[in-house]
């Protein structure tokens, strides 16, 4: 009996490993092909696929930068927008969570319920009114409509509130009050440092979401100089792509994808753990 059980677990383990390796293969193969093709010249590419990298990565890159798409500019715009969004989002979401966590006031319960209720409303359904509004505010074709709304982020708020419930005790705040610290100072010098691990996870997620965002920026941004990477990708797609040097196309895609992969691999420990924490609502 003992032995039979042992064998069956051994077999199941082997099956599990085989399936996991296959799945990993299907997750990674696309990026491997992308990397290989980014290193090959247009003529090599049209000759068919080989799994061995070539030597034209730098050539493709210089050709791309010299070309018509303002790609370096696009990346700088993307970084600027994503970084500011992430910064504002985590700072003010922590503040909102702190307000609900640490104080007792009449509208507290209503506000908490309200934020949870609107959590699932997608931005797409309000984007029509949003575009008309920013047009009236003369903010069309600026970065503000892409950055400022991140201050009110119900999902980030919910995650931080849950983390705060388990780490921030009211007695700590009271002790600081007795020492004469003002409420705003308590928030900046005690609450924010305590929340660092959760803030870091959410900052990464907000950054990546903003970096990848295509729908709203494509409707807000018009001038070439202000375009972000996803808009440039769409532009590349809508151009008559057969005329393009395919090596450049691959380098451009690689350029949008690989920075995120590298950052992710460096921080994956926190990211994968953070997903599980935020998703399970207890």
């Amino acid at each position, binding site marked *: 009996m003992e032995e039979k059980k042992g064998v069956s677990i051994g077999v199941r383990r082997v099956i599990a490993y085989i399936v996991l390796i296959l799945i990993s293969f299907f997750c990674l193969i696309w990026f491997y092909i992308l990397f290989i093709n980014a290193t090959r010249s247009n003529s090599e590419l049209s000759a068919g696929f080989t799994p061995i990298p070539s030597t034209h990565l730098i050539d493709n890159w210089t050709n791309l930068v010299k070309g018509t798409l303002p790609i370096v500019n696009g990346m700088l715009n993307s970084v600027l927008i994503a970084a500011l969004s992430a910064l504002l989002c985590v700072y*003010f979401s922590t503040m909102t969570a702190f307000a609900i966590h640490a104080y*007792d006031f009449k509208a507290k319960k209503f506000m908490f319920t309200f934020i949870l209720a609107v959590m699932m409303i997608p931005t797409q359904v309000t984007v*029509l009114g*949003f575009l008309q509004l920013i047009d009236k505010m003369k903010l069309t074709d600026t970065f503000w409509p892409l950055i400022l*709304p991140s201050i009110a982020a119900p999902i980030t708020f919910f995650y931080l509130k849950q983390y705060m419930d388990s780490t921030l005790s009211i007695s700590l705040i009271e002790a600081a009050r007795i020492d004469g610290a003002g409420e705003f100072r308590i928030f900046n010098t005690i609450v924010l440092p305590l929340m660092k691990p959760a803030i870091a996870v959410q900052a990464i997620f907000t950054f990546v979401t903003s970096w990848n965002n295509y*729908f709203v920026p494509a*409707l807000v941004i018009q001038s070439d100089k202000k375009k972000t990477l996803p808009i440039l990708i769409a532009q590349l797609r809508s151009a008559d792509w057969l005329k393009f040097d395919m090596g450049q196309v691959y380098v451009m895609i690689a350029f949008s994808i690989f920075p995120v992969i590298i950052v992710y691999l460096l921080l994956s420990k926190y990211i994968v753990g953070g997903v599980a924490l935020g*998703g399970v609502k207890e």
Partner: protein
Amino acid sequence: MKKRSNVVKYNRWGYIFLIPFIVVYVVFQLVPLVTTVGNSFFEYYRSGLTQIGPNWIGLENYKSIFSTPDLWQYFGNTMIMWIMGFVPQILLSLLLGAWFSNPSLRLKCQRFFKTVIYLPNLIMASAFAMLFFTLFADTGPINSILMQTGVLDAPYSFMSHVWSVRTLVALMNLLMWFGNTTILLMAGMMGIDPSLFEAASVDGATATQVFFKITLPLLRPILIYVMITSLIGGLQMFDVPQILTNGTGDPMRSSMTLIMYLNKHLFSKNYGIGGALSVFLFVITGILSLIIFRFTDNRKAIK
């Protein structure tokens, strides 16, 4: 007495700290929501360079979107592509979650596998779609590999067949989301009381029985949560099919989603119809969120 007034004084800060959230939410979300709904009751569009309206026409916009077959076709496309991605996704995630959370299996390199399966979730969807477009092009590497290995004699035109385009969209959604779902389900499985599994193994239950009789029923709340959030996400499907098909939803608009349709109206400043479409989407997602909301609320009450 003095102490009480102090507490009240502190609690005023609750309102002060809420100001940034409330102001930004009202300005950038609530006001746009109201004006979006408002637009749906007006004849308001652009014809060439002249703007028609806004003229009050009541429910005419709704009548016009519900009476044309377009809306239902795009709704159908969206649902078909969501189901094609979601069914394999949930099955795969259940299997992987059960393996990762099974202590007797003792899988090594778990961190590595979790890192790999979550990776596609962070990739820019538009770049990922562009990548698939180039990989699956007639002269692209996938066709080249298939021909080199003798599977195909001539290149298969993935972009001009209805079901191959839909399959590619579903495949990309599957790749991007199954890692996320696996991690959520695994966290749920780890939360199940281990004594239940011990009792089951004492009673001689097989791994399959344990999975179907214990794990699955206890996982139901999280499964419903995952399914509805995925459905809400599926209704918002945009980046992948938009870039893959260059916004056309071809062949014959068989991969055009609801948000791609909305996007078209927004680009051509067709505000009346666009508003009615937004309200339609808002109502559907509203109902779905309400289900989750009621559901998670009930669970809290039970606990």
